[in-house]
């Protein structure tokens, strides 16, 4: 019995010794030290910050930091799925050798399937001759869209007049977004340009976006902002109401201090044009309309640009027959080149001939009285002379 026990014990010791011999054949102190010098040199998510539901890529770069001829054999690389960041790609199952100083890149498809927050999916890499490498990556989910704002726009619009809208695209996210395109549309709207490519916008950056709108009817202007977060398309929409009316700030040139002078059928009208609006009136011009026929030298008078509260003098010349008044046309352009016209009637009959009559056509009393007196003196003198000569 003792012999059997002894033999069993010897067999057990031999078996244990054999097993220890197998283990000692793959994992050595040197291989464990060498595996310790393998590290994750970088782990990058694209996009850097996910929207909920976004798909992306995790790229992990592993570096063998050993020198000399110490290569490392790796068997298995995988990404553990987090609660919100889930890996959708298979693990790396094949063995490979990572030479001294070499780098190896592992890519994993992921999907952000959770609410806003910061998550830590773990990358693991198994060594053949040592234990495994574990690395916690950092992933963020943030549901903050790109911001489209209207910086300035006209108070009201006029049918067929081009107006400029000043917009701005800002990126409040922590990562860069790409391929930003703004599309402008609407019923009865002609937008210039109708599609604006902004491109890439870094985190915290903003860019102005201006476009002109010509509306044929009151409507809603539809703004659609497309952009990509990684490879995931996203949109922002905005509606801007287009209403017709009088722009409270628009330039308002007014004719005043009008003086009319008639130079034999050719009328000269002089006056001032005051800009009573709040915007600059460009290329202000004054001319006369039918029944007036513009004549040289001032068929049309170009006053030029008038800033708010500024004024300029003008003079127009024209001929007119059988007309008591003639309309003066005043035109100007706004900053978008739209032409605005207004008319003002000016009386020419009373003002012209009336002034002339006052000065020139009144009865010349003084010369008439002088003539009568001289004539009376002459006749009287002769009557007296004749009476005296009779005596």
């Amino acid at each position, binding site marked *: 019995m003792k012999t059997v026990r002894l033999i069993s014990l010897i067999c057990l010791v031999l078996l244990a010794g054999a097993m220890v011999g197998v283990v000692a054949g793959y994992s050595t102190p040197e291989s464990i030290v060498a595996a310790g010098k393998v590290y994750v040199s970088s782990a990058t998510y694209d996009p850097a910050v996910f929207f909920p539901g976004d798909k992306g890529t995790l790229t992990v770069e592993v570096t063998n930091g050993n020198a000399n001829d110490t290569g490392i054999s790796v068997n298995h690389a995988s990404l553990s799925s987090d609660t919100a960041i889930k890996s959708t790609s298979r693990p790396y199952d094949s063995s490979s050798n990572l030479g001294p100083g070499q780098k190896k890149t592992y890519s994993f498809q992921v999907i952000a399937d959770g609410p806003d927050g910061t998550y830590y999916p773990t990358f693991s890499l198994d060594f053949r001759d040592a234990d495994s490498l574990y690395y916690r990556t950092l992933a963020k989910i943030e549901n903050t869209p790109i911001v489209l704002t209207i910086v300035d726009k006209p108070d009201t619009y006029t049918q067929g007049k081009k107006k400029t809208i000043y917009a701005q695209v800002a990126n409040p996210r922590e990562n860069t977004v790409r391929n930003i395109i703004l599309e402008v549309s609407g019923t009865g709207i002609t937008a210039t340009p109708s599609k604006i490519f902004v491109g890439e916008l870094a985190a915290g950056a903003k860019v102005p976006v201006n476009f002109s709108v010509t509306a044929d009817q009151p409507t809603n202007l539809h703004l659609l902002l497309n952009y990509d977060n990684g490879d995931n398309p996203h949109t922002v929409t905005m509606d801007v109401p287009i209403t017709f009316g009088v722009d409270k700030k628009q330039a308002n040139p007014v004719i005043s201090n009008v003086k009319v002078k008639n130079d034999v*059928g050719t009328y000269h009208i002089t006056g001032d044009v005051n800009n009573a609006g709040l915007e600059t009136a460009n290329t202000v011009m004054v001319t006369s309309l039918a029944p007036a026929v513009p*004549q040289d030298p001032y068929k049309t008078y170009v006053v030029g640009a008038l800033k708010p509260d500024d004024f300029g003098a003008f003079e127009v010349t024209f*001929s007119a*027959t059988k007309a008591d008044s003639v309309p003066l046309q005043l035109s100007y352009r706004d900053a978008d080149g739209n032409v605005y016209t207004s008319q003002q009637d000016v009386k020419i009959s009373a003002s012209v001939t009336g002034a*002339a009559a006052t000065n020139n056509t009144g009865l010349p009393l003084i010369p008439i009285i*002088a003539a009568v007196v001289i*004539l009376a003196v002459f006749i009287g003198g002769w009557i007296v002379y004749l009476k005296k000569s009779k005596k």
Partner: protein
Amino acid sequence: MKHSIIDLLVRPGAFFQNAMNDKESLKFPALIVLVGGIAGALYGYLIGGLTGQLLGGIVPGMGTIIVLSTAIGALIGTFIFWAIWAGVMYAFSLIFKGEGTFRRTLEFIGYGYLPQVFGTLITFIIALDYIPRIHVPQLSAAASQNPDLITEAVKALMHDPAMMELSQISMIISMVFLLWSANIWIFGMQHARKLSPRDAALSVGIPVVLYILYMVYSMAVM
């Protein structure tokens, strides 16, 4: 000419009494009228220049024609008026049974033109000062298609303040010197047609006063 010009101007009765002793001659009266005509032509040249400026724009060269025709017209017109005045006064003297030839009447009326020569010269000198101040409207070639425009232009020229003033001064001066001439003509007609002072005054005074009233009327309605 045996008699003094001073006598003609100051003592026309004595002048014509002596002149009746001389043979009828139009030489000296014609010379006076010629000088008056030249003075009138000078004045006409200035006034015609204004009209020339006014209408010169319609047809190139028209201004020169107007100036020359006005000056020549004034010269010739003075002689025509001499004859008209003489004819009218001769006709009036017929009412009063005047005696004497028309030639003598023409001669004495010619003498009586002398004060008007002075008057025209004074008017001419005053016009030299006024003419530059007169604003002459400019008419373009297109105005030739519109007679109303030309009428209006002429009206505007006549109503120019400086032009109005010149016309009034000219009228007063003309009237004063015409009355001076009339004074001489009365004595002239008295001797030329052998009229009484009253008949002579009426023969001369009626046409002259009518003419002056016409001048005043023209001035008033201008």
